[in-house]
């Protein structure tokens, strides 16, 4: 497959997303969150499904960072360098999740996967839009999810997976931080360029409403990971 071959797809709510990146035949790629597997909380199947999903999330994050290196060759070198480093970080995370999945008796392709993060982020035609959504919003949100995951997995008696999540969270702080740092620099030096970040966030809000199946609306808020968010350059009030 050539990179120009990745077109677009229309999914739930008529939302147009970038089509999936290449996957091995063992994976069943779905386009709707409602078709993902569900298991009782804390069960072995649930933990394996979670790790399988985390593996695919990390692979998508790698693909998004890599695609941004391709799509924005004129971006400042320090940002490109950070994106390249992010590629390696996401690789290490993917390997850790895959190894743990196998330890727990799972395997690649055991559950359906969805590539919505890639599909959403790669629709944005500016690096500032992609970093605002992928690094600041998605990875910023993952700081909250990962911290809660560490506590939940420890409570389920799985400190090994909890340790992996904690290490991943530490790396994600830097991915959020460099994006926040660049956005802050742009705010001072070229505030008009941030309009693309704002437009991307607006588009994301609309797409999220359309893409989330009604039965999957969040019933409770995830606690904010104040320490990591502050470390990543967010102003926490």
């Amino acid at each position, binding site marked *: *497959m*050539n*990179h120009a*071959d*990745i077109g677009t797809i229309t999914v739930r709510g008529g939302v147009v997303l970038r089509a999936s*990146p*290449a*996957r*091995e*035949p063992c994976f069943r790629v779905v386009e709707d969150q409602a078709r993902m597997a569900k298991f009782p909380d804390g069960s072995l199947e649930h933990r394996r499904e979670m790790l399988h999903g985390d593996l695919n999330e990390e*692979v998508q994050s*790698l*693909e998004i960072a*890599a*695609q941004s*290196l*391709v799509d924005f*060759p004129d971006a400042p*070198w320090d940002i*490109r*360098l950070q994106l*390249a*480093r992010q*590629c*390696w970080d*996401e*690789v290490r995370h*993917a*390997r850790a999740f*895959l190894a743990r999945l196998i330890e727990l008796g799972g395997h*690649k392709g055991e559950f359906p996967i969805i590539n919505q993060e*890639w599909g959403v982020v790669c629709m944005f035609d500016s690096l500032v839009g992609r970093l605002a959504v992928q690094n600041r919003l998605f990875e910023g949100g993952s700081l909250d999810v990962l911290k809660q995951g560490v506590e939940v997995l420890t409570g389920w008696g799985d400190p090994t997976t909890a340790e992996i999540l904690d290490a991943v969270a530490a790396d994600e702080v830097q991915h959020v931080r460099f994006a926040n740092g660049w956005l802050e620099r742009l705010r001072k030096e070229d505030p008009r360029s941030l309009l693309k970040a704002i437009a991307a966030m607006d588009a994301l809000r609309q797409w999220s409403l359309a893409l989330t199946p009604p039965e999957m609306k969040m019933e409770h808020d995830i606690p904010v990971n104040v320490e990591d968010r502050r470390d990543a350059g967010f102003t926490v009030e």
Partner: protein
Amino acid sequence: MQLNVKQRGDHVATFRWIEVRVMEMLARWVPTTPETEVKLAFGTHIWDFAQHADHLGKRTHELRLPPQFSLAPVPGYALFLADLAETTASDRRVAACYDCLLPALERRYREYASRVDPLLDGPTLRIVEHILFDLARMQKEGQALRDEVPAVATTDAAWIAALRRHEMEFTDIVLGRPAEAAAERDAA
């Protein structure tokens, strides 16, 4: 004859251009390669190439060039890399990277090291030593990848041999700085 400061700057800036292009080539291949392990290997090596480019880019500033300055190689070599980036089959991508490009880069860096004064160009040689260390590791990782993923373990032997031969046809890949190269041509 050993390379002078200007020639060393040209070489370092050209190497930087190549490292960035190869980084971009692997980045382009990551989303379009189906095999997970291959994606992960390419993703790892994106960071290696980026670091090489960064170290070389710091050195360009010490050789009377701007920081992170790149110089395109001779057009034929640039075209060779552009064609390589269009490779689509995973086994060919793996072979192109680990059996052709990395050994070729290793050869070119060693050749550079043999053409400079180790005292006067010590800082570049330190960078080159690190890059050579990385290139050897990356080739080992490429072999481990093929041990792990039989689908990419072998490729068309004639194709890879032709690719290697083509790469070696470019004996001197350094074009030099455009304005000065033009002036030299005019003088000739």
